[in-house]
């Protein structure tokens, strides 16, 4: 009976060999597919269970991961969640990621290709994978000033460093606390998320870059003025500025704000028109320049551009091939003109930076867990919408707007401020949106800002950009100048 026993032991070996092959197949060959399977919660746990890098503003972590004793190992923690929510986004085990948490996820989680050497050295030294820290361009004081000035009003503030394109402040209101979504109890997160979704004023919407687009109103006159300067006009060129302007091929007319007249003799310089934000003269100017010229000037300032800062920015839009009457309206930032607050801040920044528009960006640098610099973002030129001379001429005109025109509420003592107000009709019975775009100091700008207050916010009485938005812009510019404008 020995021979069959020997054969039986060979059969046994074959059985075990089969098991080993099967195990190898699962753990090596099929492992990639199995690990990538959407039903594999392990992948989720692993992702949420590794040390995630912090998000840093001005050298201080505003979002970081602290160890906790639950299956996820780490809890995302916020020093000032609502203030930075527009930039950081949330990081939820139930609803995933948004904002910087999403766009910089592979760096924060430590899986990015650029972190290969970090991972290798961590492996050698026995460290577990640790994510990199992402430093934002935001300036804590400017951000705080913007949020405080905007208060409870629905709207947005964007402040840029015109010289570099760094985003100094990005505030949207109302905002939310990402901490309630980073909670590890899925039922509590669900409840909190449903509550946020149910709010009509949309706290999860980033109005600064990705909310509904807004009609820019009279702030769009800056684009028309820039186009005019390029077409050979100058600050003293006389414009036709009637009390009422007939629109071609219609029985409609355009009048000025509050029915006032711009000039006694229906003639007014470009500078004066901008200063008091005359409608009839700019509507007429737009028609005379022709829409294509205005449109291409707007495109040079960023309209229609798919920006990622790295948060995705909704492209601002303009009407396609408007007729004469529509061109007149569109020249006033009405009709089908739509823009994000970031877009309007870019207009200010382009004029401020001697006609050179820098690409806006929100991530300053990335450092691995050993504080080694992994990525360092350099300023980059996006376009050159104006010549230096034209830009300076337009700047001078904008200075008079703040000194003696519609934007006096943005005056800062001792500092020359350039600006333009906007009061955009929303086409409904609702109150208009209040706008202010500007920069300071006018001769050597360190900050360009755009303020939007939806439907004039909570102020009583008349809503104008000069009355509602200009004081907010003033507070933001003051904070930026006080911060030294050294960023």
């Amino acid at each position: 009976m020995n021979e069959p026993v020997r054969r039986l032991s060979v059969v046994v070996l074959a059985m075990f060999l089969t098991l080993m092959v099967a195990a190898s197949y699962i753990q090596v060959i099929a492992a990639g597919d199995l690990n990538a399977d959407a039903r594999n919660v392990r992948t989720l746990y692993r992702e949420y269970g590794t040390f995630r890098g912090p998000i840093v503003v001005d050298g201080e972590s505003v979002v970081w991961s602290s160890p906790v004793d639950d299956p996820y190992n780490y809890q995302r923690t916020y020093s000032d969640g609502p203030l930075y929510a527009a930039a950081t986004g949330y990081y939820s085990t139930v609803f995933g990621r948004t904002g910087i948490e999403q766009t910089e996820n592979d760096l924060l989680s430590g899986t990015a290709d650029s972190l290969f050497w970090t991972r290798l050295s961590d492996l050698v030294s026995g460290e577990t994978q640790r994510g990199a820290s992402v430093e934002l361009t935001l300036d804590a004081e400017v951000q705080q000033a913007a949020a405080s000035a905007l208060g409870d009003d629905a709207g947005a503030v964007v402040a840029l460093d015109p010289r570099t394109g760094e985003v100094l402040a990005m505030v949207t209101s109302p905002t939310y606390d990402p901490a309630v979504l980073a909670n590890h109890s899925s039922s509590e997160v669900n409840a909190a998320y449903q509550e946020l979704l149910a709010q009509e004023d949309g706290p999860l919407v980033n109005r600064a870059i990705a909310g509904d687009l807004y009609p820019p109103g009279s702030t769009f006159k800056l684009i028309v003025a820039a186009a005019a300067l390029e077409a050979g006009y100058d600050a003293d060129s006389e414009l036709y500025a009637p009390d009422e302007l007939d629109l071609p091929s219609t029985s409609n007319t355009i009048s000025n704000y509050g029915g006032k007249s711009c000039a006694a003799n229906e003639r007014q310089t470009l500078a004066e028109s901008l200063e008091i934000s005359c409608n009839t003269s700019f509507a007429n100017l737009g028609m005379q320049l022709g829409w294509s010229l205005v449109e291409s000037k707007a495109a040079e300032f960023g309209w229609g551009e798919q920006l990622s800062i790295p948060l995705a920015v909704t492209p601002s839009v303009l009407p396609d091939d408007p007729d004469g009457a529509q061109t007149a309206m569109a020249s006033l930032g009405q009709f089908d003109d739509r823009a994000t607050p970031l877009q309007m801040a870019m207009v200010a920044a382009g004029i401020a930076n001697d006609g050179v528009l820098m690409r806006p960006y929100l991530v300053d640098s990335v450092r691995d867990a050993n504080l080694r610099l992994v990525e360092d973002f350099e300023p980059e030129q996006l376009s050159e919408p104006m010549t230096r001379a034209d830009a300076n001429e337009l700047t001078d005109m904008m200075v008079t707007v703040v000194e003696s025109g519609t934007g006096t509420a943005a005056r800062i003592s001792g500092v020359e401020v350039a600006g333009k107000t906007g009061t955009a009709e929303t086409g409904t019975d609702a109150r208009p949106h209040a706008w202010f775009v500007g920069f300071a100091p006018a001769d050597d700008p360190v900050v360009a800002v755009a303020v939007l207050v939806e439907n004039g916010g909570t102020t009583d009485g008349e809503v104008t950009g000069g009355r509602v938005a200009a004081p907010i812009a003033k507070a933001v510019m003051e904070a930026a100048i006080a911060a030294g404008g050294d960023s």
Partner: protein
Amino acid sequence: MATVTDVKVRTGRRSELGLLGLAVGLAVLARGLVDYHADFLELDELAIYAAGWTAVALLIHLAIRRWAPFADPVLVPAVLGLNGIGLAMIRRMDFAYAARGRDTDFGEVQIAWTLLGVALAMLVILLLRDYRLLRRFTYTAGVLGLIGLLLPLVPGLGTEINGARIWISVFGRSLQPAEFAKIAFVIFFAGFLVTNRDTLALAGPKVLGMRFPRPRDMGPLALVWVAAMLVQIYERDLGTSLLLFGIFVAMLYVATERLSWVIVGLGMFATGAVLAGALFSHVASRYTAWLHALDAEVYRSGTSEQLVRGLFGMASGGLFGTGLGEGRPDLVPYAESDFIVASIGEELGLTGLMAILTLYVIIVQRAMRTAIGTRHGFGKLLAAGLGFAIALQVFIVVGGVTRVIPLTGLTTPFLAYGGSSMLANWIVIGLLLRLSDQARRPEEVTP
């Protein structure tokens, strides 16, 4: 046909002592790692554990020296190694469950079962001084085995867990009588086959150039086949059914040296399995869960969820594993018992799983070696049968987890949480110790 092979007279007791030291070291180190990763490491407690293991190993060593001095020196160390890793893994699951708010004491209970198992194995070599005594109980063993197999079907006594009716509750604890019935059947098969092997080996009709057994000798095989089919259908346990039938066919082959029996046997089982799949929906759903485990529909229905989660766990372990205590084996249901192999694959990686499988190969090959060295036909059949029982049980469990065969409810010997399996398999080791002791004993001192 040579039934006796000369074996060198070397007791190997000293090598055994060294190997036991290795096994104890493995067990203590594994537990230390588990405690460390659970932030629970207390050195004095670990020292007590180490002392306990050392004492157990020494006692085993002394007992074997006294009652089975020529026993195979590799068997017990290999088993203790598996057992130690199993204990550490089960303790690790206790920690994992505790972290999720579920209070379990699997680790502690399993230590008690292990000690009881070791004691039973020692009791076997103390009381059973000559394995040939067992031959007298051939038919008693057959009846006991049948009773054990059918006990779970007795109303009020048998309990159904996860759709398989293979448990009975005694004193508030669940027992799997099939684990013990397995031993009884091996004894019965050995006794029966050694008596009837000549008849069963008689040549029958010749088909396709191969001589088949005479149809009139098919009785015993048919009987076991019926029993296996009944277990599969009424106890819903494909594992025990396959184990029982497989052991019989293997032993039949060893007894008769006729491959034709294997072919007939496998053919009958395959036919039965296919028929059962066609006739009974619960059998069919098991097959579907096996063949289409990753299919979204099947997964959503829940039938393959445990299997697939086990696969996810093993995949996440990769080559070297996440490290003991650093994976998430608790995401797989029954990670401490039915799916302990997946837990090991996840945390110790393919490397660790290969090592575990190799330990089983060593144990089984020592049993086969014992069978070759044994002088009597009954002993040869018994040793080969017991060895193959361990091999087939591991194959069925690990094969189920790795999708080689449909998933069944058997436990991994010495590794998985569970008392019946631990006790029964230590008894098997006791029997193998006795068999190898007699096989390796020099002629002159044979009683």
